[in-house]
């Protein structure tokens, strides 16, 4: 059953992609169908994707050239953490709304002008997707 579910949309996409585009009219119909199929595929893959987002988020959080969260925060699983910021734990309880965490990473100076925390989103240190992956990871702590 999963095979059928996985393969059907993929082969459908493949069919659409390889079908020669003869006229504008059929192309117009194809686009929403393609999006619908992609959405279904994404929905099916979501548990696996969420898992890889958490792993990506952890990587980004520890990477010196990216989030580098470990430089200032104690984080479970990270060696030699810094001490400037608070320990990152129980974050799902502290920030039930993930948008709050996203906002802090995007630009904490908005809430606290004195903060040391770099505005990762505003200054484009991290992309929106990267911030989202880090939030996924933080919510597991």
């Amino acid at each position, binding site marked *: 059953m999963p095979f059928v579910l996985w393969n059907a949309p993929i082969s459908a996409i493949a069919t659409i992609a390889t079908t020669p585009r003869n006229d504008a009219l059929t192309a117009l119909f194809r686009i929403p169908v393609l999006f619908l199929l992609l959405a279904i595929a994404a929905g099916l893959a979501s548990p696996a994707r969420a898992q890889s987002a958490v792993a990506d988020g952890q990587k980004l959080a520890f990477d010196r050239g990216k989030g580098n969260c*470990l430089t200032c925060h104690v984080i479970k699983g990270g060696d030699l953490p*810094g001490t*400037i910021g608070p320990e990152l734990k129980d974050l799902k309880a502290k920030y039930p709304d993930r948008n709050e965490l996203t906002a802090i990473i995007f630009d904490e100076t908005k809430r606290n002008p004195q903060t040391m925390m*770099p505005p990762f989103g505003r200054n484009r*240190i991290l992309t929106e997707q990267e911030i989202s992956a880090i939030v996924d990871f933080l919510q597991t702590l």
Partner: protein
Amino acid sequence: MKARFSLLLGAVSAALVAFALTSPHVVAADKADPVADAKAFQNFFFQKFPNVKHEDFVNGPYSMNDDMKRQWQEKEEFPPYEFALDAGKEMFATPFKNGKTYADCFPNGGIGIRQNYPYFDEKEGKVVTLELALNRCREANGEAPYSYVKDEMASLTAYMAFTSRGKPMDIKIPDDPRALAAFENGKRYFYTRRGQMNFSCAGCHVQSPGERIRAETLAPALGILNAMPIYRSEWSGMGTTSRRFVTCNSQTRAVPLEPQADEYRDVEYFLSYVANGLPISGPGARP
């Protein structure tokens, strides 16, 4: 075309005149007071770290952490800056091609004077640092200037600092509005956030000294230049005050200035002045 150019020129000069007329008022409104600033700056650190002896702040991170301090004290028996110190002593005594030496360029033959640098040169209207004075000395005697960041410059300043060890920093701000402006400009640079990380010098070295960034302990700003130049394990070598400023900027993803740019000279003036009274400890060693 010509008319448009002169119109533009007129507008620019009008703006300049307006700026010149208003800027003294701005300074007056701020009531620059270096004496009060230095007192407040020192008291901030003395109160934040009541257990640190005042003269110990010049030892940077070692003043913040007893374990690190013990390790450092053992290391000081065979200090990593020793080769630079020896080289600097020899360079200092070696005459230029014209027969003159560094001693001819400095008061007291350059010995025991490091605590008076940087100073405000009223003829030039700018801050003159020790590194700058050394290269000017070379150029005045027909020698090529050295790189400001390491090697020979670090060796020479290491030797000159060593002859001043223990002498209290003694920076003067003459009664000259330009000197006061240089101090204020350095202060502004020190407290202004910049670069992709949005850090100021003060964020790390006033707000967070003693805290760690990963394994590294942040040094207090108070007396931070008294230890210059330093051997840094991170650099695998010696570095000058210029090197410290440039790498601080680049590590926080800000655009570094040229060594000895006016703003760096001013920030050195500010930081040295607020450390007045604390002993020279250079050359230093840092992780």
